[in-house]
């Protein structure tokens, strides 16, 4: 059957199982919008209030489910407004397909109205991108885009559609399978490397299992747990992977890196074997590279070969899908144990870690009437039993949440880890709540990031998306202020944002229920009330203004040089 490109897009999205998309219309995508509301029973479109929100919502949707998120924006400014969200998805390996409008093919390069070279602009922040030049290519391109976004190391793929491509007609047929000679991710690990890795794991005296976002993407949480339990490996998660290994598990070390636990960073620093599963040894994790885990051998499992050996020297590289490789390893462990191998006694190692943990635990204290932000996160954890889906924005509140919430399962924690994009928290929670309507979804945000994203309250109210927004309001760009305090002699240069709207009135102006806490004694009541109210609720929690995140590894310092208080 012949149909126009705009309809082909709708049909192709259905073939990919897409149920929800986040978008914003404009001239170049009007043909698509002309179809969209006629097919709203098949694909539900959420009208965001800024294109960046569409990308963050699609990210939250994808991160909460593992499904590929979809965003649709217009040409020129629509596309450029989406770039931050695309870069975020690229840095955090989130599968998203972004459809952008483009000026008609005969106008490309003419500096036409709302023209921007979107494939050029996004080349370095997409996994791949396309400019559709023939309407016959549209369906196969969409097939390829979803294939690339969701396989291998996931990431954003952009499909730029000139306006005439959505107007012209052709016969719709959607390819059932796909094979690309230039793109075949390696899934299985090399058996020889697996055997060497398992031997090292069995022999190690002070091993640490270091789990990253790749383990989430691969759905490897069960295998991670089996491996940790089988060989009794202390296990740390990166910021991106929190929850992949349950925080309450006796083998859990929590988060490592710049704001990781003292015991976690000391364990890494002292370790003789680091087993990295889908993590990338980024600078926020390693601190000063040449002093990172100097006594440790490194096993590095990653589906992206370019991650291996990029930052640290790796003794045993294993290229492959985290889940597949861990399954291979578990089988090899059985084999080696049956042939008489014995796991090294690691009691001294566990005793040492316990001692570190006792010496310098995370602290949550009271300060009279003043609300301590850590206390707020602690209460949120208690009242939701560590079971809510929590998105964070970027800054101090993000680190307190990462340290204290105690994530128990994968895809429960959403944040902008790699790019560190403020404005992520609210729209990401919105996307997650669309995907998981029956779960409690909380956006923990700062007053700075909230002011970069609060236009999405309109979207949230319009669709009654049950997001609980918890503003940790200290009137500062808190993390900037903390660095200025600690490393710039308290010169608080342009980080004070105390001149701000009344967030409760603001939410009410959008038609959203809102609550405020200004005293420590009010926190529990506000949280309980918000969590027990159906639909969206905003909480303005006015916390101690100059609280710091500890521990902190100063920029360029080694992990063991962390400042504890």
């Amino acid at each position: 059957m012949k149909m126009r490109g705009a309809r082909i897009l709708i049909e192709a999205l259905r073939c990919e199982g897409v149920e929800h998309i986040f978008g914003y219309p404009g001239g170049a995508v009007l043909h698509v919008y002309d179809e969209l509301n006629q097919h709203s029973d098949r694909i539900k479109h959420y009208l965001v209030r800024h294109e960046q929100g569409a990308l963050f919502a699609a990210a939250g949707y994808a991160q909460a489910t593992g499904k590929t998120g979809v965003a649709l924006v217009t040409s020129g400014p629509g596309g450029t407004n989406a770039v931050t969200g695309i870069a975020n998805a690229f840095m955090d390996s989130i599968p998203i397909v972004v459809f952008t409008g483009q000026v008609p093919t005969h106008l490309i390069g003419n500096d036409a109205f709302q023209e921007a070279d979107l494939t050029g602009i996004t080349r370095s922040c997409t996994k791949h991108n396309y400019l559709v030049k023939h309407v016959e290519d549209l369906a196969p391109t969409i097939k390829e885009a979803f294939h690339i976004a969701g396989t291998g190391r996931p990431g954003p793929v952009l499909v730029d559609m000139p306006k005439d491509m959505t107007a012209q007609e052709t016969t719709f047929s959607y390819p059932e399978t796909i094979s690309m000679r230039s793109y075949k991710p390696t899934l299985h690990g090399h058996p020889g490397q697996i055997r060497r890795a398992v031997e090292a794991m069995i022999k190690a005296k002070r091993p640490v299992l270091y789990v990253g976002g790749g383990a989430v993407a691969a759905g490897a949480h069960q295998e991670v747990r089996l491996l940790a339990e089988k060989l009794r490996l202390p296990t740390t998660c990166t910021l991106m992977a929190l929850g992949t290994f349950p925080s309450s598990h006796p083998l859990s070390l929590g988060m490592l890196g710049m704001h990781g636990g003292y015991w976690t960073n000391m364990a890494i620093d002292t370790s003789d074997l680091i087993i990295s599963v889908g993590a990338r040894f980024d600078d926020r994790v390693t601190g000063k590279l040449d002093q990172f885990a100097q006594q440790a051998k490194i096993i590095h499992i990653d589906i992206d070969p370019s991650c291996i050996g990029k930052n640290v020297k790796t003794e045993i590289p294993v290229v492959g899908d985290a889940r597949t490789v861990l399954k291979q390893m578990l089988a090899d462990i059985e084999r080696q144990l049956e042939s008489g191998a014995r796991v090294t006694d690691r009691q001294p190692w566990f005793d040492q870690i316990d001692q570190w943990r006792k010496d310098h635990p995370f602290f949550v204290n009271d300060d009279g009437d003043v609300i301590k932000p850590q206390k707020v996160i602690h209460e949120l954890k208690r009242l939701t039993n560590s079971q809510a889906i929590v998105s964070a924005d970027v800054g101090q509140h993000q680190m307190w949440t990462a340290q204290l919430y105690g994530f128990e399962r994968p895809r429960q924690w959403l944040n902008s880890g790699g790019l560190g994009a403020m404005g992520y928290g609210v729209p990401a929670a919105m996307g997650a709540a669309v995907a998981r309507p029956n779960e409690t979804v909380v956006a923990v945000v700062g007053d700075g990031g909230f002011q970069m994203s609060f236009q999405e309250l309109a979207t949230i109210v319009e669709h009654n998306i049950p997001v609980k927004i918890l503003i940790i309001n200290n009137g500062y760009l808190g993390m900037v202020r903390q660095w200025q305090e600690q490393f710039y002699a308290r010169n608080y240069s342009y980080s004070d944002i105390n001149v701000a709207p009344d967030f409760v009135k603001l939410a009410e102006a959008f038609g959203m229920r809102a609550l405020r806490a200004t005293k420590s004694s009010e926190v529990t009541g506000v949280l309980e009330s918000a969590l027990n109210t159906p639909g969206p609720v905003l909480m303005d929690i006015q916390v101690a203004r100059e609280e710091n995140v500890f521990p902190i590894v100063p920029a360029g310092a080694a992990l063991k040089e962390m400042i504890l208080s």
Partner: protein
Amino acid sequence: MRHTISLLVEDEYGMLPRVAGLFSARGYSIDTLCVGPTLEDGISRMTMTTHGNDQVIEQIIKQLRKLVKVIKVTDLTERAHVEREMVMVAVTAEVGGHRQEVLNIVNIFRAKVVDVSNDSFILELTGNAEKLQAFIDVLKPMGIKEMVRTGTVAMTRVAATRVHQLKGNEETFSQLTLNEKV
């Protein structure tokens, strides 16, 4: 160290900026770059020379392989291969001047004269980068008006072509044996 890297890529819109952009975005440098068709429709070959320590070169190769439309990446540096570049030099050669001297140099380097006028020649020479540089250095005192140089193209030696090459060219013979020892 200098490396010669050969890529087979899908002949698609935007391939060159994808490859070039990767280098600029990650702070690597391209010294030379040649792009052309292959025997198979839809596949182009890019040959590039770059430099860096082992870790940088390893990253360059891995990052190139990661590009979705790159089919194959080969580092030719550590295997037996032949490299060629071409240069065209417009050199001053006035009637009654040093025309004969220039022609002598052309003979020595087995170059060609591809254009003649009353006051200049255009010379063409093919060879590896060192040979071209030597040629240019010798011509400089004669007065070079303009010079145009291609990037490097390179090809792995295959067993069949080895015999042929050995017979014809002593220079490549020594290079081959050297590479085989390595």
